């Protein structure tokens, strides 16, 4: 038994269960965290009745989800209606498998279980699976998460849900492109698709990728917000316009699964940003946080560091949500296709050029490239003549149309 648990397979199984449970627990407390942050932003108290400081509120909410009547409306497509939350939950729940949580572990240092091993005899990856296409796996899983939203919206057979699904679909497709391109910038810089090697590289050199490619980090953070359907990109749910968007018709545990999926994907995307740009488990000047430290307490310290970094990023997510208004849909699309895609394409091409000249690891060269791309973007943006209002400048105004009938804005009768 001890031998099985200290083998890579047994350890991966245990780690998968532990991290999955930890993420589920973290999701419950993310909701508490979000409500508290909302309350602080709006100068309120937030949940403070259940338990000290309201800390038992997530448990009460969870119990409420479980014990509510599991109602399926009569007008829905039953198979997909039930399947959609499941897809959302599974897809958002398997992304963490590839993330490196704590470098390597010397199995002989595990208390009790590892006592029969010699030091250094068996080194374990603190990662559930170590794939040589790790980043691509994560991208593939993230690209599948749109199905839960789209099927939930469509099967509800409700126009608000359907609008939510349509918006989610277009948004995910659009933001996947800059996300993939900025990830490729990191791949070009580091020369590997393995997440654990990217972290080990940053830890060994002490240079986090954000110091080389701050613009790419920013773009990745923005697209991570969009991929997790977080405000200001939460047009798929947009309570004020679409009732609740794709989950309008859902209640009880199925609604809870959508929620779990959304928060779990927040955690996964923040962990991705941390791993790619913020050095993973690495912090400077701490001997326990290097690749050479492989004892069990060093691994726990590394996991704690990742958890803190992820928590900080999630705080930023929530801070943004309660500070910024939601985009309008055309602004959302314009942001993706007219600014993020060209900028990330430029960064990608420039990184390839740096790689060709062997400068891809030099901080000044990378910063210069980022600066040039940013300056170019600012120059193009400042050439715009009119502020973005959503109305095309060359359309007739509604009042000026002599023969206007029906409902619609200028664009609709300009087509005819």
């Amino acid at each position, binding site marked *: 038994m001890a031998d099985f648990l200290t083998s890579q397979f047994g350890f991966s199984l245990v780690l998968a269960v532990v991290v999955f449970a930890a993420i589920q627990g973290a999701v419950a407390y993310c909701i508490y965290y979000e409500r508290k942050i909302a309350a602080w932003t709006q100068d309120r108290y937030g949940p403070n009745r259940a338990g000290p400081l309201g800390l038992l509120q997530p448990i009460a909410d969870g119990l409420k989800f479980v014990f509510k009547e599991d109602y399926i409306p009569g007008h829905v497509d039953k198979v997909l209606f039930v399947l959609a939350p499941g897809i959302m939950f599974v897809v958002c729940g398997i992304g963490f498998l590839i993330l490196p949580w704590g470098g390597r572990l010397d199995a002989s240092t595990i208390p009790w279980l590892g006592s029969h091993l010699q030091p250094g005899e068996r080194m374990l990856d603190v990662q559930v699976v170590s794939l040589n*296409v790790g980043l691509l796996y994560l991208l593939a899983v993230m690209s599948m998460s749109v199905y839960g939203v789209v099927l939930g919206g469509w099967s509800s057979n409700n126009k608000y849900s359907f609008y939510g699904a349509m918006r989610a679909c277009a948004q995910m497709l659009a933001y996947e492109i800059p996300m993939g391109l900025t990830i490729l910038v990191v791949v070009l810089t580091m020369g590997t698709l393995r997440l654990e090697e990217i972290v080990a590289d940053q830890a060994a050199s002490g240079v986090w990728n954000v110091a080389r490619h701050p613009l790419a980090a920013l773009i990745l953070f923005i697209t991570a917000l969009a991929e997790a359907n977080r405000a200001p990109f939460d047009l798929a749910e947009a309570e004020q316009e679409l009732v609740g968007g794709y989950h309008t018709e859902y209640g009880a545990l199925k609604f809870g699964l959508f929620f779990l999926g959304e928060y779990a994907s927040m955690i996964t995307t923040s962990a991705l940003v941390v791993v790619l740009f913020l050095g993973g488990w690495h912090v400077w000047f701490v001997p326990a946080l290097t690749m050479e430290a492989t004892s069990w307490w060093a691994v726990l310290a590394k996991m704690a560091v990742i958890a803190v970094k992820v928590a900080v990023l999630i705080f930023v997510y929530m801070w943004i949500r309660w500070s910024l208004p939601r985009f309008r849909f055309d602004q959302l699309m314009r942001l993706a296709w007219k600014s993020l895609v060209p900028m990330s394409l430029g960064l990608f091409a420039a990184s390839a050029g740096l790689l060709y000249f062997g400068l891809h690891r030099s901080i000044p060269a990378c910063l210069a490239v980022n600066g040039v791309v940013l300056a170019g973007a600012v120059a193009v943006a400042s050439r715009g003549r009119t502020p973005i209002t959503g109305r095309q400048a060359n359309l007739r105004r509604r009042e000026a149309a002599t023969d206007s009938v029906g409902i619609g804005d200028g664009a609709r009768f300009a087509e005819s």
Partner: protein
Amino acid sequence: MTPAALYTLYAAFVLGGAGLYFLLPNPDRGKPLAGAALGALGLAALIVAWALVGDAGTGAAFYALGGVAVLCTVRVITHPKPVYSALYFVVTVLAVAALCVLQGAEFLAAALVIIYAGAILVTYVFVIMLAQQSGPSSADRRSREPFLSVCAGFVTMAVITVHASKALESNAAAAGRGRAEARLASAVTEAGAPAGIAEDGATLSDDGAKRSAATPGNAMALGGAVMTRYMAALQLSGLLLLIAMVGAVAMSRKRVPQEGAVAPRAPLGQAGREVPPY
């Protein structure tokens, strides 16, 4: 290939084709039980033929995933609801990606999922949902020219499968029977990639060479092959996609009248149907 294996393979295709013909949607028929039975027989015959060919280098995972892929593909073309068809296609793509992983082609698997399941099929689902707001169309309940399409599809598939399994057999004989690695390598050589391409690709960076030596993976080898031997094909396909994109933009664009121009009002019900050329 023994005659027994060959004829079992042919029988599998005939049975499968007949089964599929009866499974295709047709409102005049009842539940397609005969079709399902014939299709199941065909699938069983395919498995027997595969076992007879021998040295397929496969385990239970291959049969399970292959079965899922075949059954879901059948449902793609026989399901009367287009949204479900598209979703079965997603499952097919996932199963095929898993088969790629079994063969050691992780990069191909990831690319298949990202591009097909994650982007193209999302677009399909998107379009189908937009197009079907008024309920299912009667055209979805009856397949068009089922006999001809089944014949064409299964004859093509039979030819390809028989030749592929013959090539597989001769390759395996040449490269040492019973070893999946050898067969894979010979298949790659057959396809035109030089066996040394892995080393070529790995010399891109010394770090990468060390890592790929420690952990064999094919992403770097594939990248090396695409960027050296197949450079022209890569550039041409990129150009083709660019042309397609420009064409799509040109076709979907509508001219917006300039300031002051008064557009003639379209007759009722015709608004937006015709766009003046520009």
